[in-house]
């Protein structure tokens, strides 16, 4: 077991290393260097530009830049944000909690909701519920997250004035307001972005689970369980559903890239102060260190998610457990 784990960890580290290298060289693919556009935004004397270059180490040969970068990145140092002037690491840490809240919540809702709805579809195969849910899930998947966010913001926030449409909290709420009021405030702001992100993600999970459940129900051991006089309910939930959940666990780990991409749009639309909106901002301001930092963090999270999913799968499915 330890050997298997060690091998998976090694694979994970290697993957991250390749990701870092890829990201670095992709960004340097363009002619000129990251600072060459800076002069377009606001006029600056050549000497200042040169000074900045030296400061960011951009006057070094590319390979040297790469090694310096990797060495620093491993230690968590991504340099300074060009736009904010503060260390990238600080900015990321500031914005991380909001993303975890939104992303984590969406992950939970998507997986739970998707698993239950998909299983229900399978149990009532070919019924009206099944067919409607099938089309609805495809439609949800086809919906652009940013558009859905706008529509929801308009309907719920503006027309019906039920929920706030932007930001993390009410700026007018007193800083010393009770803990419960503060939490409620954040939750109210979380509602719409969470709903948006969940809706566009849940469709795929539903379809996936439906198939997994149908397969589980068709297994011979289900018929054998029936022959033993076990109740349908027990057969469905304990035998069929349990077996169909394993692929979902793997999905959990693989869903991170989807959520990360979705959150870029959803956070931007709702001005949710997370990493997604940070990335969108950074592209707009051509803030390369910041963009790199966010991208690499996402890559690490994706790899970590995959690793955790593998471990969870092994923990749950006795067949896969390495001896």
């Amino acid at each position, binding site marked *: 077991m330890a050997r298997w784990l060690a091998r998976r960890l090694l694979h994970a580290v290697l993957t991250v290393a390749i990701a870092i290298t890829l990201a670095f060289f992709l960004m340097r693919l363009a002619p000129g260097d990251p600072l060459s556009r800076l002069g377009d935004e606001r006029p600056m004397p050549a000497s200042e530009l040169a000074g900045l270059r030296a400061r960011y180490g951009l006057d070094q040969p590319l390979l040297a830049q790469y090694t310096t970068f990797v060495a620093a990145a491993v230690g968590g140092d991504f340099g300074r944000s060009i736009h904010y002037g503060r260390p990238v690491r600080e900015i990321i840490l500031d914005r991380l909690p909001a993303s975890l809240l939104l992303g984590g919540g969406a992950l939970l809702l998507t997986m739970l909701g998707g698993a239950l709805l998909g299983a229900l579809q399978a149990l009532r195969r070919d019924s009206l519920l099944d067919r409607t849910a099938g089309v609805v899930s495809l439609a949800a998947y086809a919906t652009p997250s940013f558009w859905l966010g706008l529509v929801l913001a308009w309907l719920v926030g503006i027309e019906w004035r039920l929920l706030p449409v932007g930001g993390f909290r009410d700026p007018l709420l007193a800083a010393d307001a009770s803990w419960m009021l503060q939490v409620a405030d954040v939750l109210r702001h979380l509602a719409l972005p969470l709903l948006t992100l969940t809706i566009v993600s849940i469709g795929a999970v539903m379809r996936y689970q439906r198939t997994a459940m149908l397969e589980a129900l068709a297994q011979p051991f289900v*018929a054998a369980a029936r*022959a033993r*006089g*076990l*109740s349908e309910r027990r057969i469905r939930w304990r035998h069929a559903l349990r*077996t169909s959940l394993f692929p979902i666990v793997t999905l959990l780990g693989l869903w991170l890239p989807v959520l990360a991409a979705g959150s870029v749009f959803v956070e931007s639309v709702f001005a949710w102060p997370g990493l997604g909106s940070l990335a969108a901002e950074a592209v707009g301001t051509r803030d390369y260190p910041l963009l790199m930092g966010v991208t690499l963090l996402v890559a690490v999270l994706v790899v970590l998610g995959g690793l955790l999913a593998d471990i969870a799968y092994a923990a749950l*499915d006795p*067949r896969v457990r390495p001896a």
Partner: protein
Amino acid sequence: MSSLLEVRDLRVSFPDRATGAVQPVDGVSFELARGETLALVGESGCGKSLSALALLRLIPPPGRIESGSAVVLDGTDVLALEDKALRKVRGRRVAMIFQDPMTSLNPVFTVGDQITEVVHAHFKVPKQEARDRALKLLNEVGIPDAATRLDAYPHQLSGGMRQRVMIAIALAGEPELLIADEPTTALDVTVQAQILELLDQLRATHGMSMLLITHDLGIVAGRADRVAVMYAGQIVEQASTAALFAKPSHPYTQGLFASVPRLTGPVGHLMPIPGTVPPPSAWPSGCRFRTRCPIVHARSAEMPPMLQVGPDHSMRCWLAEDQQ
């Protein structure tokens, strides 16, 4: 000996795109007395497994049991039971073991869990008692080191042991009738004899009746009290084992015997039955064996009923008429 199970005119139909519907089980009738073993013999596709499934109403949709069929277990009409009552029959009065123990056991639950699950489903006993019973059963079916094996997963056991586990699960309900559908087909030859021996012992110890379904005539001798030979959805010959082996009467049965190699006796030629078993949609009208029969009776265009050939020995063939 009173009759434990009475099956009359069992008919199972499946919808068929070409012909509307087919009846892979077409008018099967037999009786099973208490404590006796009946072997249902036939090649694959003859409908024997479906007949067994029908006894517990396990026919997978879109198949269905046709009205006019009767399955009576010790006076209870199984086909008319409500779901709850049916569950009290399944596993409790009638237990079934299947051909492939690997796919019939849930891979993610331990062996012990799967046995105790059945115990809890049919008896109100505390958890520890259920576990004790499971342990006893594992010992009874001959699993070495049973205490440890209770917590093993199916994939950790060999094929023979998995089949023993299946038998243990079947016994957990203390059934009156055990249906064994090709219990040894998926096993190594060396293990087959052991399992059959085990089934025999258990049947005697627990006073169960057994319906043994197989395509292998070899395992029937010495293990079954009576034999019913099936072909194309029908029983074509029924007799006590001794009578059948002494005088196989239906041309199909004779063909089966002729195609089985013998270890003793004169060395002759192996004679396979010419042709192949037709699918339900292509069954000939009248006697279904006539396209492959070496004799082909004059009346074979007409479906023969079961006719007596001797005491407790009948066959579905017009030749019986000639002999009377």
